[in-house]
């Protein structure tokens, strides 16, 4: 067990799996010589060679499509979008080709798309997005959004071993800011199993990715303020997502906030909220509250971006409102 950054955990997971499984290779823009825009694959090309760590042309469609083809030939490709925002250029390859292949003709497409995502550093409308909500609507894809270093490693391992196309969202704001214990060795984390980030009894916050820490701060403030006990459920993966864990938490607390950094309308929070409202109708003591980014592009200038991103204060206000319901 060692303390690692979130970024280091992803890097270690990739490296270990590449050592373990010759079929794994990486492809993306500037991931080789440069080691990736965020240096996740620094040193990889030296260790694994140019054949397994491929600096591709600026071609998200070709990168993604090539992964599908290589996967069909028995490889385990892992590609990187330089920023998750650019996955819009690979949308068709993911949604039309990779996602539907198995249903249509029964051939598995074991690919992983790494997606550095999220805001918080004035990246502006094209370097800050959380596009998971688009893909959550596409049957055939799986989606991981780790929050902790241990999950970052555990989920990248599972993603690579999964026989399906997996979108792996790695939150840039967590890369170097979040450190945590990462168990040594082969510690894959199962998809579809939520994690209780913190137990509580008065109210549940259902969230994932960087918002886990926003929830944590708000919960701490609430506890200090008037002893409100907040349970935080970290979904870890949103396709599949752990309805049972969510419903169990709601059954306990009867009040729930769904929190994400993606925009509001038709975000994955809508799915969670709709499901809770449907399945836990009898249990709920208050309407399910969604706290999300507003329905705008991600603005660049700090005062706007700060207002855009859900802040601990926003969540605290939500907790208070729900508690008073």
């Amino acid at each position, binding site marked *: 067990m060692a303390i690692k950054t979130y970024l280091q955990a992803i890097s270690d997971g990739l490296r270990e799996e590449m050592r373990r499984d010759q079929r794994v*290779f990486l*492809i993306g823009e500037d991931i080789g010589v440069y080691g990736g825009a965020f240096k996740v694959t620094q040193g990889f090309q030296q260790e694994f060679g140019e*054949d*397994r760590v*491929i600096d*591709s*042309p600026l*071609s998200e*469609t*070709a*990168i*993604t*499509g*090539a*992964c*599908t*083809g*290589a*996967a*069909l*030939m*028995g*490889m385990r*490709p892992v590609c990187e979008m330089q920023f998750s925002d650019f996955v819009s250029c690979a949308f*068709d*390859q993911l949604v*039309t*080709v990779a996602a*539907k*292949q*198995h*249903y*249509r*003709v*029964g*051939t*598995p*497409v*074991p690919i992983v798309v790494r997606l550095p995502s999220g805001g918080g550093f004035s990246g502006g409308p094209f370097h800050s997005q959380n596009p998971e909500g688009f893909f959550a609507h596409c*049957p*055939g894809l*799986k989606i991981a959004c780790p929050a902790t270093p241990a999950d970052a490693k555990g989920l990248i391992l599972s993603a690579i*071993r*999964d*026989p*399906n196309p997996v979108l792996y969202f790695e939150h840039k704001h967590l890369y170097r800011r979040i450190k945590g214990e990462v168990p040594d060795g082969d510690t894959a984390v199962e998809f579809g199993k939520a994690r209780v980030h913190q137990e509580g009894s008065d109210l549940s916050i259902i969230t994932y990715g960087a918002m886990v820490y926003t929830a944590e701060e708000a919960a701490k403030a609430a506890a200090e303020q008037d002893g409100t006990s907040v349970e935080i459920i970290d979904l870890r993966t949103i396709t599949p997502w752990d309805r049972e864990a969510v419903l169990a938490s709601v059954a306990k607390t009867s009040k729930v906030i769904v929190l994400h950094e993606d925009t509001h309308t038709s975000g994955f929070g809508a799915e969670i909220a709709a499901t809770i409202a449907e399945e836990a109708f009898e249990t709920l003591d208050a309407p399910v509250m969604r706290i999300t980014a507003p329905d705008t592009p991600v603005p660049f200038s700090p005062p706007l971006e700060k207002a855009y991103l859900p802040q601990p204060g926003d969540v605290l206000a939500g907790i208070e409102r729900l508690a008073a319901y």
Partner: protein
Amino acid sequence: MAVAREATPVESAEDVKQADLDSEDLLQIYRNMLITRGIEERGHILYRQGKIPGSFYTGRGNEGASVGVATAMQAMDVGTPIQRDMGVHVTRGTEPWRIFAQYMGRSDGLAAGKDGNVHMADIRLGLIAMVSHLPALMPVAVGAALAFQIRREPRVAVAWSGDGAMARGDAHEAMNLAGVRKLPVVFIVDNNQYAYSTPNRLEFACDHLADRAAAYGFEGVVVDGCDVLTVYREAHAAIEKARAGGGPTLLELVTLRMEGHAVHDDAFYVPREMLEHWKEKDPIERHRRWLKESGVLGEAVDDEITVEVKKLLNEAMKRAEESPLPDAADLDTGVYADPEELDTPHHR
């Protein structure tokens, strides 16, 4: 300004020998073209009888192009044939009854009723099932070639596109990546001069689509797609070049789409004279003539083959009609793969 090479036609038996084809191969090509056309003609009838749901596409006029290329592929090679390439499926050994079952949306169709018509392939025969979105499998074929290159396998991927589909970004990104990494892939353009109703002149402004190869650093060749032997020779050369590490080639196979885009389309926009002219060039008739002139095919054998193909197809239709429709309970199975499914040969 044309930059691609124009392939000279195969003329003599000597040419053919150089191309590594013996008499049995030449007859097999003939047989495969007949089966290909036979499947589509019968499919068309089944469609009119209401036995095939959805839409129906044929590749009449493209039998030489598709069979020619597929004949040049080795068993270990892989391909991503498209809507006019029934000949590829046939040549690589897809059983006709399963194709009819596919058309009719039956359980024994290659997509077991989950997908229809030409959106099919048998991965065990090295073919990857096309998607509608054209030419989205070009990058996929390039990825297969990438796998071969990484594993140092002497295998080649063959990627198909229509003339119209060459306008899409996927074609560009795929050919560019293949050129940069000198991947073992051969690009085939089925240039049947139309994309639905859109003629070549509204699709591209260079002389030949094969000219595009220069933009990606490899060779382009324009080939008479009605001449199966020339198609074979050029495909063979390109495939073996790729196998030897020589990188990609772009082959443009020029034909005319002899029927509508799909059966609902009477192709009123194709000038009649043009159709008449290309009818003369029919790839099956041409090959038959060549076989006869070259003494490979006598009347008797020709009759024998015709009867045999007819029998094969009639039995295939019958068997396909016996295949059950899928069970509604299967609707939501198979969206995701299970881990054990990775342990299939093509995944090792």
